[in-house]
């Protein structure tokens, strides 16, 4: 595994983010939170996750070792380099038709822990898949999904990390020819939660994705959803939604790219951030790079807002308090993000509901 032999001195030479020096361009990920943790030492334990799973990956579960990452390389970013530097093993699972639940072992530590899972959805298969991660440590998790030719899949990645640590999720997907995927990523907040989602669409593939993130207290989330359409006749519907409570920051952004080879493709990209705290902040950046004029359509939208005065007035006139109105809005919008997940919809909604209950009953 030569590619994993990464020199720490070389990693340190790289910049965290290769952005321009425009005075208005900012870092939306607070990289300093990672720097504080990366060299920290400490004990490391893994606990088995609660619940029934078909696969548990990591030291507490099944061994499904793989040797090479497929959709991510250490050299692609400083974060990826650190991920591989601290990584002990990659797990790879191949799936035929069926419904599956996979969970990572939960690391318990004060130091950086890297985890890595590759899932291959086989050709012509019909797969429903729930992937859970509930780390109690700082660190990075990479999830690679390969949806092979002519497969159909419903996928939910449900992340519930401990709020006090900085975390990074690097999610990569390849949707090969004729394959279609309905997917969702959901995450509760952490001190700094960077969720990078990158999907590549090949010929005649279909991708329908929703991403939902919560942030509260002083947490910060940077959810980046990039869709790269390199195949003809590919079709993407992608939306991201962030709720920012208290004095948290929610950034929802990404780029939809249709390359020259992606002619006759269609894309629709929507990002929304809803500000629910008086000191909360919300940033949206729905970017689009269309490299050919031969597209069916390409649209994007974004919005930042709080509960509108009209809705407030209407519901308050019917006896609801402000807190009840906010709760209604958050539950309704959050649960509807899973509507496209067909047979795993209820399970995902139940998971989201539990986390929202925790927020509304205990945390806020």
């Amino acid at each position, binding site marked *: 595994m030569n590619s994993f032999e990464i020199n720490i001195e070389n990693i340190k030479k790289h910049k965290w983010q290769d*952005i*321009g*020096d*425009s*005075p*208005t*361009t*900012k870092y939306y990920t607070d990289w300093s939170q990672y720097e504080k943790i990366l060299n920290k030492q400490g004990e490391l334990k893994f606990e088995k996750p609660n619940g029934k799973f078909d696969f548990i990956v990591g030291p507490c579960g099944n061994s499904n070792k793989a040797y090479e990452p497929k959709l991510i390389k250490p050299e692609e970013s400083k974060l990826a380099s650190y991920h591989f530097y601290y990584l002990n093993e990659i797990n790879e699972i191949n799936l035929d038709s069926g419904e599956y639940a996979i969970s990572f072992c939960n690391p318990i530590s004060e130091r950086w822990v890297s985890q890595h899972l590759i899932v291959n959805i086989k050709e012509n298969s019909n797969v429903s898949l729930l992937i859970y991660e509930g780390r109690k440590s700082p660190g990075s998790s990479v999830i690679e999904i390969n949806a092979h030719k002519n497969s159909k899949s419903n996928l939910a990645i449900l992340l519930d990390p401990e709020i006090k640590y900085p975390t990074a999720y690097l999610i990569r997907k390849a949707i090969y020819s004729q394959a279609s995927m309905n997917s969702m990523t959901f995450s509760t907040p952490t001190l700094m939660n960077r969720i990078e989602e990158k999907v590549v669409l090949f010929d005649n593939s279909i991708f329908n994705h929703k991403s939902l993130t919560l942030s509260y207290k002083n947490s910060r989330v940077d959810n980046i959803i990039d869709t790269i359409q390199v195949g003809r006749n590919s079709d993407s519907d992608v939306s991201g939604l962030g709720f920012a409570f208290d004095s948290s920051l929610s950034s929802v952004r990404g780029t939809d790219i249709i390359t*020259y080879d992606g*002619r006759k493709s269609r894309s629709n990209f929507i990002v929304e*951030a809803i*500000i*629910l*705290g*008086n*000191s*909360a*902040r*919300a*940033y*949206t*950046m*729905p*970017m*689009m*790079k*269309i*490299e*050919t*004029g*031969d*597209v069916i*359509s*390409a*649209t*994007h*939208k*974004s*919005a*930042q*807002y*709080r509960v*509108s005065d009209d809705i407030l007035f209407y519901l308050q006139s019917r006896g609801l308090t402000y807190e009840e109105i906010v709760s209604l809005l958050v539950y309704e919008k959050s649960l509807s993000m899973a509507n496209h997940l067909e047979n795993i919809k209820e399970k995902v909604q139940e998971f989201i509901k539990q986390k929202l209950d925790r927020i509304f009953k205990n945390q806020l």
Partner: protein
Amino acid sequence: MGSPIELAKDKELKEIVENKGIEDILGKSVPYPKDIEIKGKITKDIIEEISKSKKEPQWMLNLRLKALELFEKLPMPNWIAGVESIDLEEFAQYVKPKVEVAENWDQLPDWMRDMYSRIGLPETEAKVLSGLTAVFDSENIISRLKDELKQKNVIFMPMDEAVQKYPDLVKEYFGKEFPMADHKFAALHYALWSGGAFVYVPKNTKIVNPVEAFFIIGGEMEGQFEHTLLVADDNSSFGTSYIHFIEGCAAPVLRNYSFHDGMVEIYAGKNSQVYFSTLQNWSRSIINFNNKRAIAEENAHVEWVEGSIGSKMTYTYPSTVLRGRGASTKNISIGISNGPYIKDVGSKAIHAAPDTKSMIISKSISSNGGIATYRGLVKVLKGAERSFSHVQCDSLILDEKSQAYTLPRNEVDEPTAIVSHEATVGRLGEDQLFYMASRGIREGEAKALIVNGFIRDVLKSLPLETVSILTRVIGLEFSELGSVG
């Protein structure tokens, strides 16, 4: 069925899109006499020489030298593509053509008068303008102001002259809206600025007809760094200050490139309204870097219109800082990237006070391998309560080789603000052409109809003078006439 004006515009565009192969109006550049041409590495000596030749006060020289220091320290901007090819030591930083400052068109030398006549500037001035100043290379060569404005105590003159005649007024606003440390090319501009216009609109003054500044770069390997400063003073209860400023740019076809690094600063006092239209149609030999920023005080309104048609590369992002309660801004840009050229344009609105509003509308058309980029920022600061912003970006790609990028940023630190953004990229589809062909509409006509429909709603909202010039410029672009604005 549209109005007669709309029908006339339809007809004009149809003719425009169908026309092909007409020579450039300004043609190729020809040699002309020059009084001064300063070239080489940009040093303190060069800055002092430029300042001395303009008989500037010490504070302006100090400002230039401070800018030079910053220019040397700041890195080349790396958020945009293409500028790395610019060799800043290669071109002339200051060029004064051999011509006396004229009071009327007849006093200009024949070659220069002929150039302006071909553009139609003397005719435009006579018919619709309240005032005009024309900059050739680095210097204003003619400035005219109608009596109507003189009687209202409006100041409209070359920027260099204003530094001499109104030093205190200029010093109060110059460099205050657009900081020199903003980026390397802003610092370069302040070090080398020459030419441009200064406008001061006193309280309670309305200027009915627009004023115009027109910029020509006559030769290759030149830099033009004109500075325009527009101050609309505060208003009382008598009415609203109002001014419409038109900026036009042109260059003949050059064998090598030239570089434009101009700047516009606007200060819009309480209750004032400022309309600033740019009709940029540089030839394909110009790298165009344009820095534009406004500050809007209480209930002021600033409107930017950017018709960005020509040039090899254009980078411009007109910005408004909404500093006073109730201030508003609107930014309309129409960018055409026809051929293997780059248009990187956009807008910024910074909401820094309650009840402020911004509206940004961008329409871009890319064809023949062109790249059209919208790059924008809406920032709502904490405390800018009930602010509202909407951004609408539409791109039309006319062939499969061309590209359109939309890169918006919306940053909201105020929970009561509402910010939204919408963008679409459309194409000229074979199905559309087939549909129209089946109804007897030829490809040229069909393209004209689609382009027309695409920009029509934006044109409708613009001042009449801007529409007239803009449709002509777009027409020249599609008919491959070349470079006039």
